[in-house]
């Protein structure tokens, strides 16, 4: 048996790389004895990596993550999900009320309120960049929980939000909200989520970390093949959905879950390749907002020795 490591995950489709690698024994083949540990939110997961309770995990770049990196606790070692032309990415949503009042494209976002979970979250970053690009000012409403944002949007108390497609599409389908744009139009190849670990693992456990990245990448490759390239046809999709359903929407019946899982399909980063330019842009934005220290460099945050990087 291999080395015992703990991998943190949220029950989202975007964490499928870990699920597939785990289920199909890619981690075991890489010599790792993996335990999956589930979280209700990304922030405690990042802290758990810092404290050494969890070894590897996937999460969005947030102010908290950068802060922890600044404290010398964690490193981003790869990419997990980035926006890509031609594939459904994060959507910009408008509430029904705002839509009817004329908010039909991102250009009309000026003076509107935009839902975020917290200041310094990825939602904040996205909204901010969209506003910047459109040359408008928006009000950001921190609501802490995704559920609270959904409620506020449905009841028209905030005007706009951005969210992953598998949440955006059913919401839009119900008629309570409307899709008014794509994030990828403003942030092409936006590095949405990243693979990260403790600074200690990145520096001192190079073998183990490489093994993990290898196993994880195989899982990602399988997922992309089945869900995007559809190399296995419908059977391949169904098999993959069955696998993911063990982890995501586990308490819903298969039929209902399958729809959501398929809706949530996005191409995960092959080989965990990382868009350094996007990370640099995000870091710069956090710094410009005064959310993290001005003296933090990209090197503090990144360890690019494990994966290929790209810039777009």
């Amino acid at each position, binding site marked *: 048996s291999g080395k015992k490591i703990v991998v943190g995950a949220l029950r989202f489709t975007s964490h499928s790389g870990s699920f597939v690698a785990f289920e199909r024994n890619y981690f075991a083949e890489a010599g790792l004895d993996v335990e999956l*540990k589930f979280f*209700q939110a990304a922030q405690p997961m990042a*802290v758990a990596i*810092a*404290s050494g309770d969890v070894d590897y995990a996937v999460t969005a770049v947030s102010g908290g993550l950068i802060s922890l990196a600044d404290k010398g606790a964690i490193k981003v070692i790869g990419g997990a999900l980035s926006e890509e032309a031609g594939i459904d990415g994060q959507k910009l949503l408008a509430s029904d009320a705002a839509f009817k009042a004329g908010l039909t494209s991102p250009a009309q976002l000026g003076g509107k309120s935009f839902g975020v979970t917290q200041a310094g979250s990825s939602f904040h970053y996205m909204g901010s960049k969209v506003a910047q690009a459109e040359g408008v000012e928006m009000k950001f409403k921190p609501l802490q929980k*995704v*559920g609270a944002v*959904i409620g506020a949007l449905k009841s028209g108390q905030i005007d706009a939000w951005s969210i992953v497609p598998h949440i955006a599409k059913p919401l839009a389908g119900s008629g309570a909200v409307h899709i008014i744009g794509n994030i990828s139009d403003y942030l092409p190849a936006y590095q949405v989520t990243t693979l990260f670990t403790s600074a200690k693992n990145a520096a001192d456990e190079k073998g183990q970390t490489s093994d993990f990245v290898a196993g994880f990448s195989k899982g990602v490759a399988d997922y992309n093949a089945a869900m995007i390239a559809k190399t296995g046809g419908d059977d391949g999709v169904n098999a993959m959905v069955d696998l993911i359903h063990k982890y995501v929407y586990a308490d819903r019946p298969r039929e209902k879950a399958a729809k959501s899982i398929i809706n949530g399909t996005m191409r995960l980063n092959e080989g965990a390749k990382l868009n350094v330019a996007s990370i640099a842009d995000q870091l710069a934005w956090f710094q410009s907002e005064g959310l993290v220290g001005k003296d933090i460099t990209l090197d503090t945050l990144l360890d690019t020795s494990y994966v290929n990087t790209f810039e777009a």
Partner: protein
Amino acid sequence: MSDPQEVRFRGGGFAPTARRGVGLVVFVLLIALAEWGTQSGWITPLTLPKPSDVLATFGELWQSGLLAKHLVPSLTRLVVGAALGVSIGMSVGVLIGLFSYVRAGLVPLVAALFPIPKIALLPLFVIWFGIDEGSKYALIAFGTFTPTVVATYGAVDNVDRSLIRMGQSFGLSWWSIVRKIVLPGAMPGILSGLRISLAIAIILLVAAEMLGAEYGIGAYILQAGSLYDLERLFAGVVTLSLLGVVVSTLIGLIEKRMLRWRA
């Protein structure tokens, strides 16, 4: 002289008597109102789920065995965390009640800890106690600790000093007095403090299960909330509420047994 006249009755009242069943009727009415409102569309589905749907969700939970799967870890956390918090809190409370220096040193500290919201400290709890059961126990223990301390030293303060003086006058040892007079005398106050502490423990379950919990009523509620799934949210909340009623009934039974000596 006028006729004899009966004396007018002017007593009574100001002593609410038990009316069995009224409580039930209120619950049934409220639920029926909600059902009618949601069925007729007068209450939008965003505002409130249909009670019947909540019941159905509850039924599914029960039948699929998921309820037990969520309840068992939650109950374990509740029992371990509350046992820790209450036992440490009671010990500290008794020490505060007995020793001047402990009182002077710890009472301000406890007063300062009381208004600290536990959820604010969540990120720290991960570092301090890890992401496994440790941090959940710690959070619940921390939340029950302060109210228990306050209730306990209040109860010790309220022990009839004339009983203590009686013990001294018969030459009882310090330890005998504490064991046989102070502790039993403080018991009613401690138990009624326990009611509040355990209600707080149940409330903190949700916060505790924000930290890396897969199963648990709190985790279930959080997940339902993050998907804005009101049926499941309410099913979870109702479970907690029932849990609270059960716990409070249990304490009532313990009180009845332990405090039989009272009126």
